[in-house]
């Protein structure tokens, strides 16, 4: 290990921003906070992107590692202890200086502090706590702070940091416990989930105390919050106990999927979710604990989990851990480790893209994971986005009538997203909509046209035939993020210029998507 003394701040920033680049979650969203008139900073719930780096990803926060020294040896990580790379560490003062000066010039929306593990998880987290405390209390920084929860940290430190940070995240790293054991021998699933559960429960009791409901309360948590309110509510105890007992007897969602039963046992040895946490006053004078919630990230393509495995983990995290976001990170073999898959031909970006699409379907479109994938079809279709794929398998639910269908039914139509569905539901209150109205409203009909009627008529006479619609949808270019297109080479296999000549397209496609 190379340690240089008296390194300049330029050099440190160079090393520690480079080391942080694989962290995905550069979002500054989830909390609305006005400036306090005295310090510096405010925050917008929608988040603000400040610039976009050469890879096209948003830069919103000053994303750095506190140190890239690390005692852990995770195989996928450039900072693993067995690697011979230049090591550097910031001091809390330097982190504050960079954050404040960058923030003043409007380079950034706040700080995203992650870290390698120096000496021990507790030692590192103490330094991070120092930096955050200094930033909030001495520099009166009121902007956004995202902080990592390092697995194995003492709960007391997690508790303290949560009062300074806006968002915290414990990285799940890999979808299953066994691959974690294999690639990150020093981390365990239990150690990662422990701070996650702690922050979740703390946030719930804090929100409960303040009377805040932040929108998407997952079903699983409703009963828990009922229990926390139990003492002074006027409803009869017997009903309560019934609900709670039935909930407690029901197995947790994670256990419903037989594949994951052992590996993804999310609740092993974790504190029971309906324990009552007493409200303790914030030591910092700040009233909200991790107001922007938690996120996590998983590496995609380093191990051989299917999309089904990955999505079931995500769904469990959203439902049982109240996560705001799960990020997917296409694996890049930075260490040229021969035991890990090679990424010479590029990281699996298309797969990452499909997972994000499906993630959106879970969070905003009212889909359940089991509708999109199952054990027989464990991976997403390479050629069609998950919603098109679902629609083609469920053609009996279409066409839907634009003037009557509910908001969530509209959301299930390929090509109609949250914005379009909102516009349709607003506009149809005052007029009966026709296709030309939809066009004028800026609703893209390329895909939707096969699945909707206006006043009982389709735009063109279309047969609801799976093969026919599949062909038509494939002719519509999938709006992939620029640069991913190169992954798809299916066209080369066709003998004809016009692929409509082929009758068994669908068959070939199916083979592809299962390959």
């Amino acid at each position, binding site marked *: 290990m190379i340690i240089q003394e008296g390194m300049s701040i330029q050099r440190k920033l160079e090393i520690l921003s480079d080391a942080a680049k694989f962290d995905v979650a550069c979002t500054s969203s989830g909390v609305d906070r006005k400036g306090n008139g005295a310090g510096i900073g405010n925050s917008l719930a929608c988040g603000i992107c400040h610039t976009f780096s*050469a890879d096209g990803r948003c830069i919103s926060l000053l994303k750095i590692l506190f140190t890239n020294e690390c005692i852990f040896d995770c195989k996928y990580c450039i900072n693993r202890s067995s690697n011979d790379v230049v090591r550097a560490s910031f001091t809390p003062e330097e982190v504050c200086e960079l954050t404040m000066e960058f923030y003043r010039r409007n380079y950034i929306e706040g700080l995203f502090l992650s870290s390698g593990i120096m000496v021990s998880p507790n030692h590192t987290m103490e330094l991070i706590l120092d930096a955050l405390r200094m930033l909030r209390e001495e520099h009166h920084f009121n902007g956004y702070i995202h902080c990592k929860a390092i697995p194995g940290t003492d709960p007391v430190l997690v508790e303290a940091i949560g009062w300074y940070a806006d968002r915290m995240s414990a990285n799940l790293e890999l979808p299953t416990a066994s691959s974690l054991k294999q690639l990150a021998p020093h981390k365990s699933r239990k150690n990662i989930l422990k701070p996650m559960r702690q922050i979740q429960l703390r946030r719930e009791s804090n929100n409960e105390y303040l009377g805040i409901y932040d929108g998407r309360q997952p079903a699983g948590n409703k009963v828990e919050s009922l229990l926390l309110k139990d003492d002074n509510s006027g409803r009869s105890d017997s009903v309560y106990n019934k609900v709670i007992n039935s909930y407690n007897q029901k197995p947790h969602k994670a256990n419903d999927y037989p594949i994951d039963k052992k590996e993804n046992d999310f609740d092993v040895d974790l504190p029971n979710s309906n324990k009552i946490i007493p409200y303790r006053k914030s030591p910092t004078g700040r009233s909200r604990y991790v107001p922007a919630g938690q996120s996590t990230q998983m590496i995609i393509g380093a191990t051989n989990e299917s999309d089904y495995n990955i999505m079931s983990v995500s769904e469990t995290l959203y439902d049982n851990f109240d996560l705001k976001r799960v990020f997917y990170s296409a694996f890049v073999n930075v260490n040229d480790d021969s035991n890990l898959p090679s990424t010479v031909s590029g990281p699996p970006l298309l797969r990452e893209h499909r997972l994000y699409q499906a993630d959106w379907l879970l969070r905003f479109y009212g889909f359940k994971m089991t509708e999109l994938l199952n054990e027989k079809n464990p991976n997403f279709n390479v050629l069609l986005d998950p919603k098109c794929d679902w629609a083609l398998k469920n053609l009996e639910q279409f066409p839907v009538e634009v003037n009557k269908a509910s908001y969530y039914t509209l959301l299930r139509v390929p090509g109609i997203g949250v914005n379009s569905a909102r516009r349709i539901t607003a506009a149809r209150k005052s007029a009966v909509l026709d296709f030309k109205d939809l066009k004028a409203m800026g609703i893209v009909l390329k895909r939707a046209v096969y699945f909707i009627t206006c006043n009982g008529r389709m735009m063109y006479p279309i047969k609801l035939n799976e093969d026919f619609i599949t062909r038509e949808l494939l002719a519509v270019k999938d709006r992939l993020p620029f640069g991913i297109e190169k992954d798809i080479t299916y066209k080369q296999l066709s003998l004809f210029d016009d692929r409509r000549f082929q009758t068994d397209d669908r068959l070939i496609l199916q083979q592809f998507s299962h390959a």
Partner: protein
Amino acid sequence: MNNFKIFQCENSIDGIFTAIYQAWSSGYGHANVKIEEQCERNNYNNIELFSEYIFVKTNLEQAIMVSRSIKSKISLEAYEMVCRVALSDYKGKGDLIYRFLILGFHIGSKIVGHLSNKVVNQVFMLNRYVNGEAHHLLGFIRFSEQENGILTATIHPKNNVISLVTPHFADRLPNERFVIFDKNRDICSLHLPGKPWIIAEFPDMDSSGYDIPVDNEYESLWKIFFDNIAIKERVNPKLQRNNLPIRFRKDMTEFEYV
């Protein structure tokens, strides 16, 4: 060819509102009047021969009366939409607002939902366009610190969004003195600690002295960060261009090509 009475007005919210007030109360009838603002894109090559041009002098009282009736008879939401449309660079926005208000005063607060109506839809789209650019600039504006401690920023926005972005920075940086220059319109917004921010015109002022970045230390640190945070294996200029259009880059520290 119809002869219209064309009310020509200043290119500002107050100017457009005054013209609307005068056109409305002129008694010529909605079908016979038009509003024409001296918009960024209007080059006056196309003067209508048989129409009568009436020049409207901006009158604050009349403008306030219009804004008050929009707020009370339609809704605050509609008022904000109309204001943003008035700040856009769309040629014919004055007349569009006039047509929108005719509908709005008839229908009331529900007008904003009538998206299948052409006029309402156009107002909706322009509102989104202006909002979008303002939101972009909240992130893309770059301040540089001058020797006297003042923060200065330059922008070249398509729409007149300076009044939409400044409140954000006044809230965010209450203890800073800062100036934002809109070089496309020769206006700037000024903020001093503890005082309300203002917008000033500077048609003759030489602001070129502020173009030279003074604080090289943090600017070079920022560039180091910007270059190192990209993942080489995923470099994707098209995606970058899609997210951050080239037109913003000339005012951004990390993209100075010089």
